[in-house]
């Protein structure tokens, strides 16, 4: 493959990854690392470096638009970032001490359970929340956004904040321990525990993944894992894709996004369980 064809193919792949990431609240690493290593033959370390660039590019590209339209909730994002960033720091410190395979297996089983519960709520457009969480009231974890698909303003308030916060801490811990992004876990915690509208969950996750990944970006950079020629088309492609993804997401129904999110969740559950059992995956 010529260098130009390589860069062009990489750019096109990154546009797709950025679009999917913006809609689903993921950094794209879950898609990008296997594609870069399996199809492009890229060295795993460089693929991981490009992935961290992709996460931050998705976050910047998507969150800029979502914050303008109030789909991302900055209070919820910052509040939960306390949990994910502290979890990531602790996780990085515990790497090598904690039995990672046991954690992967437990996480895989939890994700499998979440996949089943998400399957049951597949057609739910907006969650009905009757509970009033004192923490949500105290920290103002609520908001309003205009839903273009429903053609009306949607008001929401978080519930089960303590569980959501704990799940976010766990997501951050695993991020630090395993060196993975945790967009899917963030979406799950906000959708499943805190009962936020799916669009708010993915848009707020987009804001948060940039913050969490920034915590580890310096490590990748200083290790020499970020190759400029590889990371450049990824960054530009992902930013372009994320900008397009935000326009698409505004027009989608919450239930449609949840349906698109389900296969990602199922794949993560299977991947984590297999890794926990010592069966390697790319």
């Amino acid at each position, binding site marked *: 493959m010529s260098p130009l064809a390589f860069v062009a193919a990489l750019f096109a792949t990154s546009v797709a990854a950025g679009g999917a990431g913006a809609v689903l609240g993921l950094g794209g690493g879950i898609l990008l690392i296997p594609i870069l290593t399996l199809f492009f033959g890229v060295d795993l370390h460089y693929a991981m470096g490009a992935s961290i660039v992709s996460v931050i590019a998705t976050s910047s590209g998507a969150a800029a638009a979502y914050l303008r339209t109030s789909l991302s909730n900055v209070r919820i994002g910052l509040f939960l970032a306390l949990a994910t960033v502290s979890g990531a*720091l602790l996780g990085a410190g515990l790497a090598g001490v904690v039995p990672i395979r046991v954690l992967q297996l437990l996480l895989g089983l939890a994700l499998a359970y979440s996949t089943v519960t998400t399957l049951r709520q597949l057609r739910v457009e907006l969650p009905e929340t009757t509970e009033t969480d004192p923490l949500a009231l105290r920290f103002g974890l609520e908001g309003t956004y205009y839903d273009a698909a429903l053609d009306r303003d949607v008001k929401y308030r978080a519930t089960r904040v303590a569980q959501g916060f704990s799940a976010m801490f766990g997501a951050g811990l695993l991020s630090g321990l395993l060196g993975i992004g945790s967009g899917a876990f963030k979406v799950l915690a906000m959708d499943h525990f805190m009962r936020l509208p799916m669009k708010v969950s993915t848009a707020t996750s987009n804001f948060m993944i940039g913050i969490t990944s920034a915590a580890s*970006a310096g490590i990748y950079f200083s290790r020499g894992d970020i190759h400029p*020629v590889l990371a*450049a088309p990824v960054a*530009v492609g992902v930013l372009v894709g994320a900008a397009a993804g935000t326009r698409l997401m505004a027009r989608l129904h919450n239930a449609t996004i949840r349906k698109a999110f389900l296969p990602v969740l199922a794949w993560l559950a299977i991947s984590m369980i297999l890794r926990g059992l010592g069966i390697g995956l790319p």
Partner: protein
Amino acid sequence: MSAPVRAERLIGRVLLLGGVLSVSLVLGGLVLYAVQSRPEAREIVRVVRNREAGRAVDVFTSLGDVRRALTRHPPDPLAVTALGLVCLLITPVLGVAVAGVAFWRAGDRDYAAIAGVVLGMLLLSFALAAGG
């Protein structure tokens, strides 16, 4: 406009500007790299498939590396790209800092403090990374 909405718009603008600046630098460096058609550019596919083959030439591991390559004559085009990538990596951190200031100015001490703690943890992680 309420404090959170003002903060949201401000952070959105910072992320957008960070993204635009990063892309401009990244693309500018990449175009210069392609135009100069250095011998190593033709080997780039082999290099990204084998980390050890390219590390010394193309990869920057510190801001000092980037600065030195930029001040060289002529400047290394990949250092321009690397500078763009660094801008991209620090954009979310700037977003948190701006959120903290916006909440503080709006009198929302809780969220100014939360943004401050998150920012402190991010800076700690950078310090730990720099310390190896």
